[in-house]
């Protein structure tokens, strides 16, 4: 948003906001549970649906659980899932994209057909179908379900980059003196596509946070009461008595997704101010 106008090396205010939001989320997810005043699962049925107080800064939910503590632990869960999905998707997608783009021919055709079939499904439907297979999905199930179609974007991006890089002189030169393909991909191709990959991963991170929250909201997340999506789902039941229970997790999810989008926009402007179209 509004990027482009800022000069080279200068960071737009919206990109700064993105950095602040992303760093804040990481800090809360990593260190938050250490400072959590209560356990995220501790029920206190004498004090249900209480407003904010000195003991419960964000109040309590329908079971008397401290909302702040639940949110802090939920942040960590969101980071673990989204971080794992982005990492696994990037490794798988980039590897397959490099192979498809470098070798071309049959293997390229095969990988891209798989990509086409995966893209033919609405993404969330595929995630739902996979999670639905498991009676009590845990964090690994969710990471798996989100990675199954998560790698596709990275593969397309990496393949496209290889196609434009493989005819450059340093690559043809390396090939001519007999550098093995694996080394060419690792030393020459991969380092040159890191910038667009980081931009893509930043947008993708926000996307994964949103989808993970959506699955938890639908009751298909890891069977924990304190994921942000699950908190939002429980909150909607009590929206009459305490809208706070909807607002807190809802705003948290929105800020993380917003932060990832702004951060991605900022990175893109920094790496390549002319391109506007590599949002996934």
């Amino acid at each position, binding site marked *: *948003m*509004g990027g482009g106008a800022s000069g080279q090396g200068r960071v737009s205010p919206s990109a700064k906001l993105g950095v602040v939001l992303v760093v804040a989320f990481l800090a809360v997810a990593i260190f938050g549970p250490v400072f959590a005043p209560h356990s995220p699962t501790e029920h206190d049925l004498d004090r249900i649906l209480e407003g904010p107080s000195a003991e419960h800064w964000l109040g309590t939910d329908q079971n008397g659980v401290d909302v702040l503590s639940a949110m802090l632990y939920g942040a960590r869960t969101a980071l673990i899932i989204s971080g794992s999905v982005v990492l696994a998707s990037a490794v798988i997608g980039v590897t397959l994209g490099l192979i498809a783009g470098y070798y071309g021919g049959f293997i390229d055709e095969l990988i891209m*057909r798989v990509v*086409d*079939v995966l893209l*033919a*499904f*609405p*993404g*969330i*439907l595929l995630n*739902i*179908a996979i999670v*639905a*297979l*498991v*009676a009590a999905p845990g964090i690994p199930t969710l990471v798996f379900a989100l990675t199954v179609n998560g790698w596709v974007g990275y593969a397309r991006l990496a393949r496209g980059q290889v196609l434009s890089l493989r005819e450059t002189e340093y690559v043809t030169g390396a090939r001519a003196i007999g550098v093995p393909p694996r080394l060419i991909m690792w030393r020459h191709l991969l380092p040159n596509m890191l910038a667009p990959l980081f931009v893509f991963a930043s947008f993708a991170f*926000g996307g994964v946070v*949103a989808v993970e*929250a*959506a699955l938890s*909201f*639908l*009751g*298909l997340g890891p069977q924990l009461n304190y994921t942000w*999506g699950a908190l*939002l*789902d429980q*909150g*909607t039941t009590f*929206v*009459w008595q305490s*809208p706070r229970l*909807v607002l807190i*997790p*809802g*705003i948290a*999810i*929105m800020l993380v*997704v*917003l932060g990832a*989008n*702004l951060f991605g926009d900022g990175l893109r402007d920094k790496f390549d101010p002319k391109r*506007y179209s590599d949002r996934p």
Partner: protein
Amino acid sequence: MSIGSFMVRRLGSSLLAIAGASVLVFFFLHLVPGDPVHQLAGGEATADQREEIESCLHLDRSLVAQFGIFLGNIANGTLGHQCPNPEENPTVMELILEVLPYTVELAIGGMIVAIALALPLGIVAALRRGSWVDAGAAVVSLLGISMPTMFLGPLLIILFFVTLGWLPGPAEPDAPFAIVLPSIVLGTALMAMLSRMTRSSLVEVMNEDYMRTARAKGLPERRVILKHGLRNALLPVITVAGLQFGALLGGTIIAEKVFARPGLGTMLLEGINERNYPVVQGTVLVIAIAYVTVNTLVDLAYGVADPRIRRR
């Protein structure tokens, strides 16, 4: 690429996608960890009951025979029956046809909201580039993209149903105007995306030679923008809107849950909770086929209209 081979190629890849989806959906039942019969019958089922469910799901037949039955159920339009007691319960297709109108209505409503809000927002932002209107439109679209559907839903319910009382709330799908809030919730993300596209597309078109020509020959600015600018700028926007129609189908799952509306998404979630595998298989298949079909039709229509698309 000629128009014939473009169509053949495009249809081929769609058929491949549908075939892939069908195979995945078929194996779904076999990928269930543990024993689906056990999941369905529960712990205290007698051997007779277990056997009945097993034969009802055809799990006692060979894999090839099962796949044949699965394809047969697609061909005869029943999409299979529910187990146990297939005779007493409606077929999966009957269940789907009952709720399908709700989902279609919602998807169309979401699309109308998205286009009706995105076009004016994008056009004004493009015409007043750099002004506060442009900045405001950018903020609106950024919030729209970042706002999770399952958060926007409760927010609108609090505002328009609980506080103002203007519109029907959840679980009243047949009340007048009940479609309004779910459509807004569903269409917001797409609205955000389309308004950005409209803006950048119109900004690009404004610099074209034919726009300068139109102005030079003395046409009033209004006419230049409406007749020459928008006409050219909106083609890519409409195409993306069409391609996103399928994605809207995925979004209906969340919107239906937020508003406790009947529909394919609600049916899918109920099927999952009740471990009613034929229902899960049927709904996934129908949503996937609808998605592929809509995307294919949009692609084909655009390929016929604009030959440049056919080059890959």
